[in-house]
């Protein structure tokens, strides 16, 4: 194990950290004071660029660059819309941050808004996150009392209002433009792009959309300086990030680790290895939408570029570990069922294709597979891939392709022998 490089979760065990007094006492809002009192907005943006921080919602786009997409000259208000519709299966990092360190989140929001001349920020929280929403609301009220939110923050003439908006429970509202639609009170349907939200986002105004974890890094970047922050991780992916480790490991949970750490180390050292000393079969490295890895691929380093090289992605940092007793047909069925349920239904390939693949997989699992089903699944996935309005289509197509291509023998066995080749020790999921 490396030395403790934790940034976001460094103080997480301090009792009462969710209250503003303890947060201030433990050094909180230092980044904000520095930003507002010593730095110009441009200097803040420059530091964020230097930090190599990349968006941690899933897409991994460089944060500083994204910030500069907001037009400087505009007669419209600009907005920040924070995406807390954390819905990617396997992911629980944003929830953890909100529950345990809400003021760090607020601090990140305020610095960001100051840097980009934003005076209204929305926090879009998924409907199931009732407790995180409560904790955040309390933190907002505390910050308002302290004069850290509201009018004339720190006497710098900077105003910021923060509004919590709760979603109604749709995975698709985590897609940024669907989230904006939902924020506007409409059905959560992704928009056609371009225009991107930076130009025409919420209420048709320039809008920055960032993830919770991304924003939580901002105070630290300001505090320690962008260059120093960048040195923590590897080149082009600065700093640490939160990994949501789940599945058949001995110590599942949330781990903040430097970018670039080998996947094997996360599973075997931090996660304590596979349960019951079973053999590892497969790992989903970055949330359910990322292509699955085989056991022999876990020596990959967990940074954006290394993992892209072996055909998967870091995504939301959710690592789902599957041992030798996992039926990959069933695992894929569970995934596809999720996407079929969550497809918004707006565009044809995803709306029809997800449901179709779900039905085929279910049929195979029920022992009624036909020769050609695997080829057909691959064909359906290929017909969805790249042809949809939003990335949800790709998010279902990529797992289907990777599961079948990497574990084809299991699918073929199911189809030919009408049962599983694995003595699964886990309860059968199919209804």
């Amino acid at each position, binding site marked *: 194990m490396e030395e403790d490089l934790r940034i976001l979760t460094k103080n997480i065990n301090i009792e009462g950290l969710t209250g503003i007094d303890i947060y201030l006492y433990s050094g909180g809002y230092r980044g904000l004071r520095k930003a507002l009192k010593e730095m110009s907005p441009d200097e803040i943006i420059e530091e964020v660029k230097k930090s190599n921080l990349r968006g941690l919602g899933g897409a991994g786009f460089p944060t500083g660059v994204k910030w500069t997409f907001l037009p400087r000259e505009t007669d419209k208000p600009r907005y920040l819309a924070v995406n807390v519709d954390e819905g990617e299966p396997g992911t629980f990092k944003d929830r953890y941050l909100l529950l345990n360190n809400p003021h760090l989140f607020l601090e990140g929001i305020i610095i960001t808004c100051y840097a980009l001349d934003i005076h209204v920020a929305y926090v879009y929280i998924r409907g199931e996150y009732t407790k995180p929403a409560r904790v955040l609301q309390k933190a907002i009220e505390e910050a308002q009392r302290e004069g850290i939110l509201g009018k004339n923050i720190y006497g710098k003439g900077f105003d910021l209002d923060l509004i919590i908006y709760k979603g109604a429970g749709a995975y698709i509202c985590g897609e940024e433009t669907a989230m904006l639609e939902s924020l506007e009170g409409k059905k959560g349907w992704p928009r056609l792009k371009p225009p991107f939200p930076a130009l025409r986002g919420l209420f048709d105004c320039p809008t920055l959309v960032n993830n919770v974890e991304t924003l939580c890094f901002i105070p630290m970047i300001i505090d320690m300086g962008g260059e120093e922050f960048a040195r923590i991780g590897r080149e082009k992916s600065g700093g640490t990030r939160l990994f949501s480790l789940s599945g058949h490991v001995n110590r599942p949970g949330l781990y903040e680790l430097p970018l670039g750490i080998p996947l094997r180390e996360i599973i075997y050292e931090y996660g304590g290895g596979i349960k019951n000393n079973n053999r590892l079969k497969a790992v989903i490295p970055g949330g359910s939408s990322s292509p699955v890895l085989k056991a022999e691929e876990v020596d990959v380093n967990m940074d954006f570029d290394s993992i892209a090289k072996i055909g998967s992605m870091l995504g939301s940092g959710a690592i789902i570990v599957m041992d030798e007793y996992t039926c990959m047909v069933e695992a894929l069925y569970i995934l596809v069922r999720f996407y079929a349920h969550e497809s918004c239904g707006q*565009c044809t*390939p995803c709306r029809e294709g997800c449901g179709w693949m779900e039905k085929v997989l279910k049929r195979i699992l029920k022992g009624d597979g036909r020769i050609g089903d695997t080829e057909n699944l691959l064909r359906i996935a290929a017909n969805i891939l790249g042809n*949809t309005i939003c990335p949800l289509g790709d998010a279902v197509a990529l797992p289907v392709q990777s599961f079948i291509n990497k574990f084809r023998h299991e699918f073929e066995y199911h189809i030919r022998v009408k049962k599983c080749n694995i003595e699964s020790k886990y309860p059968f999921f199919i209804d």
Partner: protein
Amino acid sequence: MHTLTIDGKEIRVERGTTILEAAKKIGIEIPHYCYHPGLSIAGNCRMCLVEIEGIPKLQISCYTPVSDGIKVHTRSERVIKARQAILEFLLINHPLDCPVCDQAGECYLQIYYMRHGLYNSTFLEDKVKKKKALVIGPTVILDSERCILCGRCVRFCDEISKSSELGIFNRGDHSEISTFPKKELNNKYSGNVVDICPVGALTDRDFRFKCRVWYLKEKPSICPGCSNGCNIWIHYNVDRTYKAEGKRVMRIKPRFNEEVNKWWICDEGRYGYKFVDDNRIEKPYIRQHGKLIPVSWDMVIEKIAGLLKKYPPKSIGIVPSPQCTNEDNFVLKKLFSEHLGMKNIDYRVPSQLNVYSDDFLIREDKNPNSRGCEELGLFPKDKGLELKDMLREAKNKKIKILYLMNHDLVKKMGREEVAFALSSVDSLIFQGTNFNETVEFADFLLPSSTFAEKDGTFINQSGRVQKINKALEPLGDSLPEWKIFVKIARELGIPVEYGDPEEIFFDITKEISSFLGLSYSLIGDEGINLY
């Protein structure tokens, strides 16, 4: 301007043009469902995907604007495969019930499958079940299983009728078009959603199961329902009269005209065609002993010519109709005003109270040709009497003959208002298309043809001259008005002789200054503005 190539053909188009529109300009059809030129872009059907060199993903051509130098392919192997895939997706949950579907024959699932599909189905699963044959309003029935969720109808109700009754509910392959709770699809333009539905999801309650579309013939025409002059198609069937109880006009569809009605018509116009086949006056009649007796044209013309000779012009009132064509009214003017010297001519019958109108297509004046009457000068001059004075003088026994063209005075002005005047004249001549309450007072009935049964021109409220075309033979013995006037003129030995409306129009352009420079062929199918 941008220069690009589509399938190897070079084209220059304005900035901001989409690839789909640019392709259309050079005759390349890119299949599409959700795109409609009159609605906002939804980009959801994905049928119009095209390949652009240098861009890895296929792009939807309905949304992607052209840019300089791009090379677009609409028939590459990738594009053809993607189209087949989209069609396959659209059809997996579709019930494939073409034999009992009213849309069959004009369904874009059928059309595109034959042009771009032709794959073999690999779908073995159970289809998603949805609501069928659901009445969603007075004019439209919804079959959700046939729906491809292009959302055109939803956008129409949001953007054009601005009534927002429709939405898409549920998610994924359980998504369904429906009305919002406690709402029905009921607005002045509701029938248009059937026209723009590319499949059999929304069908017209009026037209449903009346006639297979391949038995329909069509003629371009103008809606006679108000002074807006919306361009329409008359869809008719005269070969299978044993269907639909012998009715000939099956439905009215809007006909695109950028300057007048774009792609739309109102429901009043769409469903207002029934008078063409219902309750028609099919023969000339003369009242004898209180009863209307059918007679021959020769007999009735002889009688009317006799009246016109007998009574002095001062005692005769003529009420031309803004429902009639310019050609009808021009011949009327020639005969009655120029040759017979009558001055009591007034087309201006007050319209009914409380008629609906709006700032879109529906006008308060429910006549298609008031402007034409105005241009021809069919109002009293040189101390001639206005309509209300004619009615007053009828009561005073000064007006003895009243010649009404198609005006249901009883309905429009009220029975109390007109009954005494109408019964006081020596002879009431009613020349029109349908029986009505005013007919009760008539001594002579002359059957005239409807707009669907004759050629001619109307001028709409903005001064646009537009052509109607004869789709059907005049029903029974009915005749176009101008022919009736020519018959009367012949009987009277007056030289008013015409062979067809084009000839009449030629004379109009010579004699009426605002028509100067126009010709029948110049009007074309889109109409032309008065000078």
